[in-house]
């Protein structure tokens, strides 16, 4: 089953819970089979599957709760803050610091977490992310930029505490 591992990883990050992640993946495959007619051949199958999973999540109880506080995207967002190059070694998270990065990702609001996962882990193009999240490509760029800044800030905060 192609995409199974990726869909499961994405679902678990969204739901942050094994049982719910399994429900999400199961529902995604069921919907993909049922709603196959809505898939337009030639378009991106991966983005289509991620969109089903993501839509299933946002209408679930956990998803509704997690997305209730999503702020409106502002395209005229502040220019991106530069990465803190003062301590690049602090940003270079090696394997021993994976736990720190995991907890920072978990703490991120779900709309930031999902876009970072789609871009960095699933390596979807901006166009595919726009299709998956059903938002314009400009929103993908500004949201990604804010998600990265938020994650960097969280990681820094955690590094300072340790």
């Amino acid at each position, binding site marked *: 089953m192609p995409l*199974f591992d990726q869909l499961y990883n994405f679902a*678990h990050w969204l739901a942050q819970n094994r049982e719910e992640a399994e429900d999400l993946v*199961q529902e995604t495959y069921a919907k993909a089979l049922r709603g196959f007619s809505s898939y337009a051949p030639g378009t991106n199958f991966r983005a289509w599957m991620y969109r089903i999973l993501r839509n299933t999540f946002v209408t679930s109880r956990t998803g509704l709760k997690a997305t209730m506080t999503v702020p409106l995207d502002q395209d005229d967002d502040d220019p991106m803050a530069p990465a803190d190059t003062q301590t690049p070694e602090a940003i270079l998270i090696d394997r021993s610091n994976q736990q720190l990065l995991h907890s920072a990702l978990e703490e991120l609001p779900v709309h930031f977490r999902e876009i970072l996962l789609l871009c960095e882990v699933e390596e979807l193009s901006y166009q595919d992310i726009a299709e998956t999240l059903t938002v314009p490509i400009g929103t993908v760029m500004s949201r990604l930029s804010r998600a*990265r800044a938020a994650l960097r800030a969280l990681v820094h905060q955690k590094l300072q505490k340790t």
Partner: protein
Amino acid sequence: MACEQWQSQLDAYLDGELPADAMRSLDAHYRTCPSCSADALARLQFKRSLKFAGNRYTATPDFRSKIRTKVAARPRRTWGMGWTLATATLALLFAAGAITLYMGRQSLQRQHTYSELADLHVATIGSANPVDVVSSDRHTVKPWFQGKIPFTFNLPELQNTDFTLLGGRVTYLGQTPGAHLIYQIRKHQISVFIFPADIPAPLGSDSGVRQQQTFNAKTWTGDGLRYVVFGDASPADIQNLTNLLKSAAHP
């Protein structure tokens, strides 16, 4: 253009989402701006850490087989012609997806290797002491590697070409020692990596100059060695240096 304006394009650059001409302008800026290139390196490291950290959860074998059974059982329960067609098409898509996934994994491993080479290239040319043997004389550079790497190689004569040899250093890829040579053409610096052909790092086959990690790269194997020419010079320059290296290997 001020650095702030370059920085606003940096993430799109690292995501490979900038148009080619903007990529080139940004490449040129990095060569002259240590602060932006340090920023780019920090962000690249962050991206890689995030990719590693994000691949965290694996389904249980039980759940995997449960879904597999459900997907496979679907046509038997729904006997209608429409369903059969839909499921058959979906099965075809899955099969195509499996092939794509396999190819994708191969390509991902290759990308990891090229990403390491990109790091080696960028870190070396950005270093205050990029090479350990500083010489444009191939008869000085080649013997310097004696006893440092477990193989030997031939370097081309560069007279009447635009290329200059700047020097070399020992490098490692996949825990295998190799030679890292730096050539210059006009203002571009090009890395030439030479490793044993059986290096445990997938690099792809000899098939023209390709874009890897936004750089241009060309790889081939010959006489038990694996060569990679890597840099931001034009594909034509990369190909010319390749031809010179190939002819030096078979004088």
